[in-house]
């Protein structure tokens, strides 16, 4: 379908997924303890991994989100975020089937925030589709990495960007 090759769709998909994940990471980074508690409530990870996961995950979300927003390392970031979204769908799905009423821990570590349910699964599914679109279609014309090909002239761009390869 031509619309799927639209540059605007690529841009919007990249920005939506990026902004959602950056936003989702902030409260978890600020409140690692509360987030670890929420992770434990999911009763999926073994106890010894809960804190490591709760400390590491939000930063992955943050940097992958930033990568998508600015359009750098888009392939890696969209792979990670599509994978994470799929994992979240499974984790939420398991607990919806279990019938437990726990806090989502999606955007807020507050216990008062939304709980698990079908709406959340649908939202996650949309997010997954957008992330997969970015993964398959690439960063698009307006991404940073589309303008910074690795070449001798790239010496002027900030370090790190020189490691880029063009799609």
């Amino acid at each position, binding site marked *: 379908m031509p619309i799927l090759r639209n540059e605007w769709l690529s841009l919007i998909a990249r920005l939506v997924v990026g902004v959602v994940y950056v936003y989702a990471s902030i409260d978890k980074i600020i409140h690692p303890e509360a987030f670890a508690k929420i992770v434990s409530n999911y009763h999926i990870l073994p106890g010894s991994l809960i804190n490591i996961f709760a400390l590491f995950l939000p930063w992955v979300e943050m940097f992958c989100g930033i990568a998508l927003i600015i359009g750098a390392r888009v392939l890696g*970031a969209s792979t990670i975020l599509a994978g994470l979204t799929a994992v979240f769908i499974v984790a939420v799905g398991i607990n919806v089937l279990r019938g437990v009423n726990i806090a989502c821990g999606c955007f807020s570590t507050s216990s*008062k925030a939304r709980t698990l349910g079908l709406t959340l699964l649908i939202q996650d599914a949309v997010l997954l589709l957008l992330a997969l679109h970015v993964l398959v279609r690439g960063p698009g014309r307006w991404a940073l990495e589309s303008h910074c090909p690795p070449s001798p002239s790239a010496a002027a761009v900030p370090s790190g960007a020189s490691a880029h390869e063009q799609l």
Partner: protein
Amino acid sequence: MKRAITQIVQLCILAAVFAVGRNTIAPGGIAWVGQWTAATASTDSSNAAPHSPSAQPDDPPFLTFEAAKAKFADPGVIFLDARDPEDYRAGHIARSIALPFEEFDQYWPDVEPQLPRDREIVAYCSGAECELSLFLARHLRTLGYTKLSIFFGGWSKWQEQGLPADTGMAAPGTVGREGRG
């Protein structure tokens, strides 16, 4: 494929550096390996005092159910309910005062006059799945309260044992005064 893996590794390393840095340097860091399984198991026993897996050694003490019941028998001890106002309204430990941790600033002006700093205070929330009582107790300690403890069994344990409870909530300004003699 190789490029995807390279970028994934780069992003993960970046995240790991920040995760370690934040957790080491900034206040509020937590242990890398928490004692989650032990804590979950202990909440099933009414002998051991259930405690939060994220509890620090210098946190206010956690009470067993029996100890909480004994405190309740002393009318001088104030029970604080750290849960949402809706949960409080639906049912709470008799004579307890609503002080929702997440709406602390809104409730505090009304609650503070009822809480002399020399009084003994027991914070609770819904039970083992909830840490609001711990957060509330820590916060109160920073405000100068010293005789604090936490009943981590919380409302679920209290209700399960059929101990005195109230429902409803007084209008703001009189929060928690209902049911008091």
